């Protein structure tokens, strides 16, 4: 049997096909991620290229022809005539890029520290887990805000906008490594005492190889679950920071920035500039979250 047919015949696929929530959630994620990645294919205008904008199109209502140009936009346009549908797709690119990168960063950091702490034990373990405990007493969003603030202070003023996205990734990543480290440490301590690890040690494998090649693969399924749930958290954290005006710069707006801009038009009745980006954010975060919940149950051997 090749890998593909083995995957189709697996328990995992069986459970997936039987769960409507998981199917719908992954369909939504698939559509949103696909739309964001291939944004130029699905939109006729690039909202961040001033040349493709027509100011006359400003404040078009959704689904109605504009009173000056007669053009019609499915989600309406904002004050500068940017198609809200296009800004959502392009904004989601930033949101997803920051979310994914932050989770990858948190995962690499957390898994490495968790492996080291669990495998070596002793003082290294105490120090790493103490830091994790201390960080856990502060809410993640506060940690991210502080790191963002410090990093902004260190970078010279002229370069702040261009590094803002990377600072955002590091700030969110550093605020979420703890969960990875705790889970991997716990799993490593269980695996460490098993016979296959003893065997690997006896044939003279280095601790590095044992950690990476033998223990790590056996801790991966909880890591996958945490990564999915962290992705939802990271997307919301990014949106929150950008909404607060300390995240993605106006030149590279994410969904949070779009919501921040849209809030300003709420009082004058242009509800669509806020409503559609907010709905996109909710749909994205909620379906990733549901997928994470389902994954946790599906990969939990106790529930089989």
């Amino acid at each position, binding site marked *: 049997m090749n890998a593909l047919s083995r995957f189709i015949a697996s328990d995992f696929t069986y459970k997936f096909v039987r769960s409507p929530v998981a199917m719908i959630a992954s369909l939504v994620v698939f559509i949103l991620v696909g739309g964001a990645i291939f944004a130029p294919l699905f939109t006729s205008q690039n909202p961040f290229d001033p040349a493709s904008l027509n100011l006359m199109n400003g404040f078009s209502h959704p689904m109605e022809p504009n009173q000056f140009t007669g053009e019609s936009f499915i989600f309406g346009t904002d004050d500068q005539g940017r198609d809200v549908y296009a800004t959502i797709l392009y904004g989601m690119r930033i949101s997803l890029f920051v979310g994914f990168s932050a989770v990858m960063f948190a995962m690499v950091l957390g898994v490495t520290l968790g492996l080291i702490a669990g495998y070596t034990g002793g003082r290294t373990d105490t120090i790493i887990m103490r830091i994790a405990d201390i960080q856990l007493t*502060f809410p993640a*969003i506060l940690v991210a805000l502080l790191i963002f603030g410090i990093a*902004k*202070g260190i970078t010279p003023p002229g370069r702040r906008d261009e590094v803002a996205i990377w600072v955002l990734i590091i700030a969110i990543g550093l605020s979420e490594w703890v969960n990875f480290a705790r889970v991997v440490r716990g799993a490593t301590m269980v695996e460490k005492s098993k016979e296959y690890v003893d065997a690997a040690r006896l044939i003279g494998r280095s601790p590095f190889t044992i950690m990476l090649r033998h223990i790590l693969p056996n801790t991966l399924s909880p890591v996958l679950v945490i990564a999915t749930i962290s992705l939802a958290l990271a997307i919301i954290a990014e949106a929150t920071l950008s909404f607060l005006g300390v995240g993605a710069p106006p030149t590279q707006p994410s969904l949070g920035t779009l919501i921040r801009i849209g809030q300003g038009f709420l009082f004058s009745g242009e509800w669509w500039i806020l409503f559609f980006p907010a709905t996109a954010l909710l749909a994205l*975060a909620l379906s990733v979250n549901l997928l994470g919940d389902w994954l946790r149950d599906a990969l939990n051997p106790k529930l089989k």
Partner: protein
Amino acid sequence: MLAFTIRRVSQSLVVLLIVGLVAFSLFRFVGDPVENLLGQERTVADIERVRTQLGLDQSFPVQYLNFLKGVVTEGNFGVSYRQGRPVADIIAERAPATLELAFVSALFAIVLGIGFGVYTAINRDGWISNVIMTSSLVGVSLPTFLIGILLIYLFAVELGWLPSFGRGETVMIGGWSTGFLTTSGLKALILPAITLGLYQMTLIMRLVRSEMLEVLRSDYIKFARARGLSQKAVHYRHALKNTLVPVITITGLQLGAIIAFAIITETVFQWPGVGLLFINAIQFVDIPVMATYLMLISVLFVSINLIVDLLYYMIDPRLKADGGAAGH
């Protein structure tokens, strides 16, 4: 007990010293303090004089100690780059707004959380309970800032019942500006307090509900029923009392979270509190304000955790048996 207390307190002090070091390094290395104080027309002699005055010619550890001494004994947190006033004064001016908001939302969360929790536990399958439980799920998955915007849209823009920003009129009572005494102040509190307290409310509600369901199954409740006590007495005198211990600890721990999440709520409602001050400080890289906020919030979190740990240690005899090795 004494050994555990000493160890826990010294751990907390180490954390605070490290936070202080981070804050001090921010002051010292991000931007040049001398540059920020002296204008363009400065001489080398001026620079030397200010450096000596600020103690910048001393070694790093000595500077750090002096900084700590200033913070602890005089409450000297430096001068805001942006407003040119002592940070301690600005924070003291802003603190009442945040504390009043946090107080009202904690009250909202506790009262409604316990009320809904008890109700949904007693009437487990009623349709009202199902509505409450389902809407609490939605409430948890909505990000705080969207809840705030939603409330503004509904109650300020569409219905026009409540103000959408600011504190309304405030009254000064001995340096404390309060919004509790005017109608506009009270009205302005409603939406931000709900926004800030909603998440905590659902948390408390779910906790009370599950604890209550657990307790209602226990033997002493059956016994109380067998004695012929009224439903009311069984539910409120016997069951509720025993669910409150974990609720009190969680609420205590959540107090810090309320102050931290106030940053988001204050930005949505332009509430002139410490959180908004902090966000503005990040936007304009006002280092002294940022560092002070960092230190104050750390003191808050570290003391809350310390108190909860010590309380647990007093309440739970099992921790004493292993000498407090599992301190939390």
